[in-house]
């Protein structure tokens, strides 16, 4: 009998992790379940931002805007047209795919720093746009929109928080599966090639303009789906939840979790969900001071984030027994 291969170990590990994730809501309080659900929605958003910034190298400081669009699409559909909550998720994804693609077109001409500037402006303008009088009849203006928490279907023996957790887990699994398949093959390699050396990538026959704007759209779609999920979980959307600081929070998430890493999105989501809770007890400003320190410290000391650290540790552990 042969020893299990690295791939088999990986599959077994993921299965165990999934089992643990399914058991979690029965082990912790309903408030913690709510927090975990919201961390799942962050993880999807981080995945979206990471596809754009980590893999493709296009810097976005404005992904909070797409999160906001997703959240508002979900809230407006549920509030105005009584659309069932699960149907708002693909709707939000589609709207954000379009919005991201459209924003990606002018962004094509902008490189590095200038794209960062344009998206920074987008992030700052978002709350004001949402408060605008012209949109008030849909967005509810400054007051925002309150939505209802969904009940578990088919008479499942779960409470509302637990059901939402499993719903979010299913969406997250689907999105991670989608992202993995997208990035593992030629598309993923094309994205990395564009990031590393655009001229060489073009010479190899990669249609840079198409890939870049399509990546912007797909990235916005992920983030919009996360926004819709976040709105359903929190049951409330208002303009002031979608400030520049939301976009920065997402940036913190991918940097701390690990740029261009799938598992990094999960680490990053846990970080931005739970660290502020701990730090809030020190001072209102403390979570942000910690975010800032982590941003700079990660760039100096840990550019691959938590995911890179985990990978390096695992590699070291796997190597050590073979040493004489």
């Amino acid at each position, binding site marked *: 009998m042969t020893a299990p291969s690295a791939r088999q170990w990986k599959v077994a590990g993921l299965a165990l992790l999934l089992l643990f994730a399914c058991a979690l809501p029965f082990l912790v309080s309903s408030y913690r379940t709510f927090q975990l659900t919201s961390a799942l929605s962050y993880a999807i958003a981080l995945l979206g931002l990471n596809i754009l*910034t980590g893999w493709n*190298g296009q*810097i976005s*400081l404005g992904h909070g805007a797409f999160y906001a669009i997703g959240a508002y699409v979900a809230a407006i559909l549920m509030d105005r047209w009584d659309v069932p909550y699960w149907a708002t998720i693909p709707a939000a994804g589609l709207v954000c795919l379009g919005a991201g693609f459209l924003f990606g077109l*002018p962004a094509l*001409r*902008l490189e*590095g*720093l*200038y794209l*960062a*500037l*344009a998206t*920074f*402006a*987008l992030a*700052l*303008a978002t709350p*004001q*746009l949402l*408060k*605008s*009088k012209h949109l008030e009849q849909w967005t509810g203006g400054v007051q925002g929109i309150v939505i209802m928490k969904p009940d578990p279907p088919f008479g499942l023996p779960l409470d509302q928080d637990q059901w939402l957790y499993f719903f979010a887990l299913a969406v997250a699994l689907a999105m991670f599966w989608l992202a993995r398949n997208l990035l593992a093959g030629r598309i993923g390699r094309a994205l990395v090639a564009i990031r590393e050396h655009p*001229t060489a990538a073009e010479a190899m026959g990669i249609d840079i303009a198409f890939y870049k704007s399509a990546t912007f759209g797909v990235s916005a779609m992920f983030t919009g789906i996360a926004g819709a999920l976040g709105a359903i979980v929190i049951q409330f959307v208002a303009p002031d939840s979608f400030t*520049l600081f939301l976009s*920065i929070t997402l*940036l913190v998430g991918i*940097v701390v979790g690990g*740029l261009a890493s799938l598992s990094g999105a999960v680490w990053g989501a846990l970080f931005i969900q739970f660290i502020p809770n701990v730090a809030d007890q020190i*001072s*209102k*400003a*403390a*979570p*942000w*001071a910690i*975010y*800032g*320190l*982590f*941003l*700079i410290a*990660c*760039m*100096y000391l840990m*550019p691959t984030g938590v995911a890179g650290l985990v990978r390096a540790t695992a590699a070291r552990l796997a190597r050590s027994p073979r040493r004489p």
Partner: protein
Amino acid sequence: MEAFLHQVLSGLATGGIYAIVALALVMIYQATHLVNFAQGEMAMFSTYLAWTMIDAGLPYWGAFAGTVALSFALGIAIERIVIRPVGNAPVLAVVIVFIGLLVILNSVAGWIYTYTIKSFPSPFPGGSVLGGYLSRHELGVMGVTLGVLLLLFLFFRFTPLGLAMRAAAQNPVSSRLVGIRVGWMLALGWGLAAAIGAVAGMMVAPIVFLDPNMMAGILLYGFAGALLGGIDNPAGAVAGGLAVGVLENLSGAYLVGTELKLTVALVLIVGVLVVRPSGLFGRVLVNRV
């Protein structure tokens, strides 16, 4: 017509503040080809320092000079400690460090001074002048803008240090060969930017009141001004800042109302970047592949 003239003049006054912020951005861009996202928060922090000094009983202009000097030193310290280690890193890493700096300055100011709004004195108190078109403060701001621009022009044009800084920005390798300490020139650029930003903060604080988030919108308009005028050209940046101030006021009065000011800035920024990335007065850069 009177109302229109009034809008244009007061637009020029706010534009003066955007122009100072744009100047500060140009200082760093010229030397390092980076746009400092933390510029607004640096200015905000300097303004809090000024507030502390005035609160402690210093006369206004004493506090003004002290703040400018202290900001200059802090700017140099930031370059040396935070920015230097990522000097050759990819743009993404540098932008992340800038955002980190922005967040830290914002939260530290909130921590020390709380998030409650404070009022800040104007050095030019009193009513309106020029037949009611402008307040004394607005006129003073315009004077300060032109003063800062004149001082910078004299510094870069007529002093050996200014020449060295220009040389270091234009051709670092050759400058190093003739004995210019290029690293220190970058640090000086940061110091100047911080000092100029402090002036902008102290000029705007009497209008928008002092709080940790006061500079966000102003920084955005500063970006728009710098881009419109050409981000590598100080005089162009001032012209761009003034133009953006007037545009903001006119669009606020006649087009979209005041509630969409930041969206106007967003449209301006994206528009300039897409249509004419080098700005009105900037040099067009050609990259060799």
